[in-house]
């Protein structure tokens, strides 16, 4: 098998890992002000339940992005260079979001203060909504094609990235992550909040069917190969399945199905791009898999590394999901362990 094609598939696998895993923790972050109910105190407890469902795992999830980025650099330097410099502004915004949420997750509980907690919640929500939208916009543009010159430099500017197809793509990832997150909350919590998120999930699955379905059909008709219809139909079937399984309170199945929906979305996106890594807009100056790739030597080395390490990563990362498998409810949340705001302020510089 051609190593460049193998690596194109592996990059798609890394993105799948990223979108399936961080997809739900984006979703949980986005739901931070939507799901919690009750009086002030109870809402804060429910927010902490939400944050703690992803607490032990979100950082490991994010490494899939770093691996996808690093692997693209190693296996497809031209792709990495053109895409990252071409998407400078969207990537900057995404990274600011990831910085904000990462810090907010870790520091939220370090200061026991309502105002501080709310500020961190805003950071978590900013850092979850923004990347959720932007990743969709970015992938929409990759499916549609970018204005490249003959040296494969992006020449379209920032505003051209905000075209209708890409924006609907952004809406699609947002809805899919919201759905994935609410299914995850239903799977990982108990009591009242579980009921609410399951109801929300079954509603969101219908919305996702319309929005993601619409975008997928648009992509199929305008940009994709015939065979990716399989992915579109699979995704549609899974979304219907999410409605059925969440109503039956079979959250494990619902989560599996919403994860497969995201797998199908990646298949559609990468399937549409192939044989290019960045299709040229209207077919001009496309950057192909073969043109963008590293040498066979580098790809061989990287293949061995990936073959040995990826299964290992899956095993120990999967194990942590098993370790932290217990459902959480407001009863599990201890009193805040952080220092009071007054104390933090009192420490003179």
């Amino acid at each position, binding site marked *: 098998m051609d190593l460049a094609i193998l690596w194109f598939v592996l990059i798609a696998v890394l993105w799948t890992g990223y979108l399936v895993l961080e997809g739900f923790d984006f979703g949980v972050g986005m739901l931070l002000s939507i799901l919690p109910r009750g009086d002030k105190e109870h809402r804060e407890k429910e927010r*902490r339940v939400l944050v*703690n469902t992803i607490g*032990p795992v979100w*950082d*490991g999830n*994010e490494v899939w992005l*770093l*691996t996808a*980025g*690093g*692997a*693209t*650099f*190693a*296996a*497809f*330097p*031209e792709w*990495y*260079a*053109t895409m*990252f*410099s*071409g998407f*400078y*502004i969207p*990537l*900057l915004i995404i990274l*600011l979001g990831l*910085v904000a949420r*990462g*810090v907010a997750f*870790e*520091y*939220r509980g*370090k200061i026991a203060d309502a105002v501080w907690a709310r500020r961190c919640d805003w950071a978590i929500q900013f850092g979850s909504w923004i990347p959720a939208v932007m990743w969709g916009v970015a992938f929409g543009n990759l499916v549609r094609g970018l204005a490249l010159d003959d040296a494969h430099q*992006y020449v379209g500017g920032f505003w051209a990235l905000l075209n209708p197809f890409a924006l609907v793509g952004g809406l699609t990832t947002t809805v899919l992550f919201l759905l994935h997150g609410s299914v995850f909350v239903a799977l990982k919590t108990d009591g009242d909040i579980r009921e609410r998120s399951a109801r929300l999930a079954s509603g969101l699955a219908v919305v996702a069917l319309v929005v993601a379905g619409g975008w997928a059909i648009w992509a199929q008709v305008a940009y994709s190969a015939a065979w990716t219809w399989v992915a579109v139909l699979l995704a549609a079937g899974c979304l219907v399945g999410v409605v059925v399984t969440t109503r039956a309170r079979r959250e494990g199945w619902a989560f599996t199905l919403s994860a497969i929906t995201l797998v199908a979305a990646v298949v559609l996106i990468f399937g549409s791009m192939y044989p290019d890594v960045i299709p040229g807009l209207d077919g001009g100056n496309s950057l192909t898999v073969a043109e963008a790739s*590293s*040498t066979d*030597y*580098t790809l061989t*080395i*990287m293949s061995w*590394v*990936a073959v040995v*390490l990826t299964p290992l990563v899956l095993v*120990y*990362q999967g194990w*942590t999901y098993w*370790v*932290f498998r217990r459902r*959480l409810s407001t*009863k*599990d*949340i*201890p009193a805040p362990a952080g*220092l009071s705001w007054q104390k*933090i302020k009192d*420490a003179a*510089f």
Partner: protein
Amino acid sequence: MDALELARWQFAITTVYHFIFVPLTIGLAPIVAGMQTAWFITKKDHWLRLTKFFGKLLLINFALGVVTGIWQEFQFGMAWSEYSRFVGDVFGAPLAMEALAAFFVESVFLGVWIFGWDRVSKKIHLASIWLFALATSLSAFFILAANSWMQHPVGTVYNPETGRAEMESISAVLTNNTLWAAFPHTITAAFLTAGTFVAGIATWWMVRLARSRTPENVEKARTVYRPAVLVGVWVMIVAGIGVGLSGDIQGKLMYEQQPGKMSSAEALCEGTESAEFSILAIGPLQAGCEDVNHVLSVPGLTSYLGTGHFSGEESYLPGVYDVQREYAERYGDVTVDGEPVTYTPPLAITYWSFRLMIGLAAFSVALAVAALWFTRKGRVSDNVWLSRLGLLAIPMPFLACSFGWIFTEVGRQPWVVAPNPTGIDQVRLLTDRGVSTAVPPGVLLASMIILTLVYAVLAVVWYRLMHRYTIEGVPDAVRDESPEAQDPDETDRPLSFAY
């Protein structure tokens, strides 16, 4: 400022900032793991209390290291895309290996350690922090492999058809002698930083409690903080020796591989035998090196650092002008745009960063010696000067690490990939050739300002948390939360650790 200058400033700001958090994480993680191991073996309460205390500081610090690290990986493609095109075939591999082999381990097992106190057995919990600690060093190894390749490209050929550097041997890249000098130097410097951090904080606490003179406070100073002082001191001593030895090896390699870097660090104009090491120089270093007046010097020391000989023919070191002449001959004296090329890095920065790197580490030595003296034979000190020294010493290795990197990276200029004098000549890239051409200067300016502001806010939050949690001291009451120590029927208990 043009795009190149902005991209360089942005890289410098974000990288130096990122590297504030890295050495403390690399050094403190194994120290915390060691404390937890001591608790595991001796079952003595104070080790668990110290584990929790320094563990919390480790987590506050690691959070910023992680989030600023994401930007590090992305900005090669975003701001330095032409560099990425040229080096990706070689440079990308260690980066990808870092993510796959090290960073996954770090993130996953840190999650287990933080949230797993009451979820996994004591042994697995202890293994988690050790895996985390080992992976932080492994991360450093791969990142330094990539960096060392830029300093000294090996295992690589230039392909004129694709116009890029292509990897010929991964084993050559991973056994690069530059890497094997830089790795121990970086790791020991990280341990020196963390050792100073632990010893500084513990010393301050020990003195503070001893001065209060209440029996229980003095007892706490003796049983909790004194052991921590000694842990910090011994880490400092071993690491300090390692820093010196590895730095010496690096100096000698650098004279072979990047003579311009070392001669500009010495402001040495013309080549000479038994070159002196100047402790202080006065003069407009920006202008050139002929106006520099070396006020205070140690004869022959620079020659020794570079060659291993204080005097004689073998102690000959090339000067800045020799390097300029030789490089101009080899690589041309004008750029593609017809501009003259200066093969001398900015003198003032290399000269002073080299001295500050070495000089600031002296505070650690002073603290180590003083702390050992004042805690001899089981004593607890209430000497206020010792506690002041402890506090003063804490930031110094951080600064030394930063200046070390500034020296390493600025000293490489004007190259982003410095040529290998004994290797394939074409594997080299001038910094101004590496910047992204597709990104307008306005965008770079905006992103530099935004990142600087965001990082500044985060620095304030980080400092306040580190500061306040330090003042809180070790917790008084700790309990064994492990599943072994708990009542198995009590399944409804709340989480032991929650955000």
